[in-house]
């Protein structure tokens, strides 16, 4: 196969896999058949495109080929004549474009995979399988689950969709506000699975972030009136822009203030910031938009000292209002500590400590230690660093805390 054809098939897979599967699910109602026929169509593309050239409309070619395959299969299995007629009569319909009344097939599939009657881990796995085209092996590896367990989970989810009568559709308007957050949550989870990975070189996990961004793009385009969908895409882009600067050559985590900003992806930052502006103009801020706004404050600062901490502290205040959580409160305390000085931050940390909600969470004593260090209260800071060290979950974090401890332990 020539490199051109190879690239064309790869590109077609990324762009059209979800669409082909979704269309086939709609007409056959059979998830396994849909996936198998889509796989077949891509396998045929590899052979036929090498011989006949890449078709002018790859999506149409793939959908028609997959449809023909489904007709063959259904004919052989001698299923209901009505379904066979329906599939045989199906023709490829081009992308609906701007017509808001025709939901994109992938949107329908996204909402079905993320139906709240399915367990969250099933929602994630099914989205990766049917929309992103990942193999069971890849999903199992990416989500750190055994392959037989993953295979079972996918089978069970598909069976439940069929037998419990989970509808294959974009939910009606009155259900959208309650259903959309699940879709957004699954996409953000996918992104984070690929972003917070401890092994930075793992390509499968890195691909997860890329797939999450791609699906978020689809969602944002299909739901332009949902500012949170656009906000989520902006948030992912703004985080992803810093990906390469987050680890040094030794694979150690580099904190935000120490990152080499020349390694940040300026195109992604610009796109994320512009998307966010558009979303915020709609005047319906949500958690993703606020988090994206915080990420944008960091991403657009010329250097660490230039960071608008007052703005970040205000945004964390807004986030705490939307999702009252002690972790958000702790982040706000850090931002206030930067904006108004360590004493102001420490006062907030002490309130969280008194509530007991974050007992055992290493970032609580780590934050207190850092604020005490900046107040030159070194004896208390040392105790706090030691407390943080006892509960820090990863080697990378323990190394970071030990470095800080050594800095203030040294007689000055």
């Amino acid at each position, binding site marked *: 196969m020539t490199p051109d054809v190879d690239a064309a098939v790869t590109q077609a897979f990324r762009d059209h896999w979800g669409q082909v599967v979704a269309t086939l699910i709609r007409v056959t109602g059979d998830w396994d058949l849909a996936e198998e026929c889509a796989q077949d169509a891509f396998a045929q593309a590899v052979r036929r495109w090498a011989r006949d050239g890449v078709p002018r409309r790859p999506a149409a070619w793939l959908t028609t080929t997959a449809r023909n395959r489904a007709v063959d299969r259904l004919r052989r299995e001698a299923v209901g004549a009505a379904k066979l007629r329906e599939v045989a009569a199906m023709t490829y319909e081009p992308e609906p474009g701007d017509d808001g009344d025709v939901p994109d097939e992938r949107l329908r599939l996204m909402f079905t995979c993320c139906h709240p009657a399915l367990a969250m881990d099933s929602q994630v796995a099914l989205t990766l399988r049917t929309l992103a085209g990942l193999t069971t092996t890849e999903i199992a590896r990416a989500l750190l689950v055994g392959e037989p367990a993953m295979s079972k989970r996918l089978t069970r989810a598909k069976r439940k969709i069929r037998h419990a009568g989970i509808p294959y559709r974009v*939910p009606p308007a009155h259900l959208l506000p309650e259903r959309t957050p699940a879709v957004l949550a699954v996409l953000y989870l996918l992104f984070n699975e690929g972003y917070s990975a401890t092994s930075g070189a793992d390509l499968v996990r890195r691909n997860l972030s890329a797939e999450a961004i791609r699906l978020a793009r689809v969602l944002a385009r299909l739901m332009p009136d949902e500012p949170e969908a656009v906000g989520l895409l902006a948030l992912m882009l703004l985080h992803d822009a810093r990906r390469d600067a987050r680890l040094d050559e030794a694979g150690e985590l580099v904190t935000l203030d120490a990152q080499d900003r020349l390694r940040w992806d300026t195109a992604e930052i610009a796109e994320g910031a512009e998307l966010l502006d558009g979303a915020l103009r709609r005047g319906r801020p949500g958690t993703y938009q606020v988090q994206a706004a915080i990420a944008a404050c960091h991403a657009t600062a010329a250097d660490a000292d230039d960071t608008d901490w007052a703005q970040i502290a205000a945004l964390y205040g807004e986030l705490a209002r939307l999702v009252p959580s002690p972790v958000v409160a702790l982040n706000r305390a850090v931002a206030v500590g930067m904006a108004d000085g360590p004493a102001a931050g420490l006062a907030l940390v002490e309130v969280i400590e008194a509530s007991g909600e974050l007992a055992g969470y290493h970032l609580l004593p780590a934050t207190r230690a850092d604020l005490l260090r900046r107040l030159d209260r070194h004896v208390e800071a040392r105790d706090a660093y030691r407390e943080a060290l006892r509960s820090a979950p990863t080697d990378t974090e323990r190394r970071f805390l030990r470095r800080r401890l050594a800095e203030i332990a040294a007689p000055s």
Partner: protein
Amino acid sequence: MQYMLLICGDESAAAHANDGCGGWTEEMLRRGVVRGGGGLRPPAEATTVRVRDDEVLLSDGPFAETKEQVGGFCLIECADLDEAIEIAAKHPAAGYGTIEIRPLWTP
């Protein structure tokens, strides 16, 4: 599709035994979704039957002693799971107990 709604609750559900269904039954009959159903007397009045080696074995009480017990059931016919969820969520018992939606086996 047909679904069985299993209406479950713990002992505190007994306090609602005479509440009625607050118009739920009337609405569902009007919509034509109800195929049957009823409330059950408490688990303490249940008898459980098993036949092993041709011998009928009886025990006093429910099949499984759990915190939550089935207190009533309702068979409904509706379009899909989303409609079944909407119907179940409207049932007053959803406010103090839980409602398990089980699709019926179809040939």
